């Protein structure tokens, strides 16, 4: 075969490329690069809005005084703070995917001073308690000996409800990750929950004006181990809802969990 074009037959190691093939390959290369860039743009601009949750490093370290409630998951009921009104409930977590159960348990029901960084998403507030001994300490006794020591808010029952929504870890959902929900994020959510981060129920409807609930077991205690198969997707679940301060606690009955 003396034909230099070889009838369009391509030989990789030969630098003589058949003419027609050369043009075709240039076109193929252009289509490949342009196609990839176009696909990147199409997928890139159509991602879900991850919401407005965020770490509020811009506010600096917050020091908040309040009554600590260790069960089902550590929550601080504010008594004194520059930013938050008294009675506001702030969930607590540790650094990374850790809870603060260890540090909170001995201080249950006491007046404490907590400090750390705030995460906020809508009405949901979480304090990432700083590490070390200073993150969570018992407040000094009130100077006025006659003052009634503040206590944990008395729970107000709101009845038994059936809700549709997603079980999230309260920290990622509050803004530690954007997005901090959905199935792609599921393993991370489970890691957070097993690490001790409070689980929250993000409902598709409101009860008493709120769509966020701190999740508890039927007895009001922690329930993490029994919800791990139902995180990060739409589920339906029944349970008692009660108000503690401005926080709604959803005492779910894990047996009624159902994937939609």
């Amino acid at each position, binding site marked *: 075969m003396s034909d230099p074009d070889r009838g369009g037959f391509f030989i990789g190691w030969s630098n003589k490329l058949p003419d027609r093939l050369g043009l075709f390959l240039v076109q193929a290369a252009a289509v490949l690069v342009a196609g990839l860039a176009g696909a990147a743009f199409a997928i890139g601009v159509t991602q879900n809005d991850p919401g407005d949750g965020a770490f509020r490093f811009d506010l600096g370290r917050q020091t908040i005084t309040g009554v600590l409630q260790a069960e089902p998951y550590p929550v601080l009921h504010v008594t004194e703070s520059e930013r938050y009104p008294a009675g506001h409930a702030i969930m607590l977590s540790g650094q990374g995917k850790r809870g603060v159960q260890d540090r909170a348990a001995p201080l249950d029901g006491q007046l404490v001073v907590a400090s750390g960084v705030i995460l906020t998403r809508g009405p949901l507030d979480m304090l990432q308690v700083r590490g070390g001994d200073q993150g969570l300490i018992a407040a000094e006794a009130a100077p006025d000996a006659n003052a009634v020591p503040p206590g944990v808010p008395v729970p107000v029952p709101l009845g038994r409800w059936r809700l*549709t929504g997603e079980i999230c870890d309260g920290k990622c959902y509050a803004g530690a990750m954007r997005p901090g929900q959905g199935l792609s994020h599921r393993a991370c959510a489970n890691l957070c929950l097993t690490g001790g981060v409070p689980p929250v129920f993000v409902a598709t409807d409101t009860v008493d004006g709120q769509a966020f609930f701190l999740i508890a077991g039927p007895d009001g205690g922690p329930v993490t181990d029994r919800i791990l198969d139902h995180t990060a997707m739409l589920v339906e679940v029944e349970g008692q809802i009660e108000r503690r301060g401005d926080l709604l606690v959803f005492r779910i009955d894990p047996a009624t969990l159902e994937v939609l």
Partner: protein
Amino acid sequence: MAAGVVTVLQIYGMAGLAVAAVFLAWGIDRVDQNARGAFVFRPLLIPGVALLWPLVLWRWGALERGRDPWAGRYRPPRRLQDWLGIGLAAAIPVILFGALLIRQEGPLERPAELLEPPPAAEGEADR
């Protein structure tokens, strides 16, 4: 359990590195004449040997014993490839459309339902 799996994988990888050291320093010259005197390409083979070391040992042994029937080298697994191609073509739509079917979208979001009102001590109705 997970920690055990990770440990086993680490041991497998360590053994693979040991096999790679012996094979690339010594064995490869015995079984492949094109490798004799060629050294620059050998580091490229380390990950492969470390990952596939049982297969490497098996082939090494076969070549050392001269058990390498030539005819086998010219029988590519074409029928396997054909079947895998058909299997893939069948599996893709099943996986894709199955996944689209179970997507949680549409009118799944039922309103909150009060199943049992709270004790009426407060005398106040919710909602």
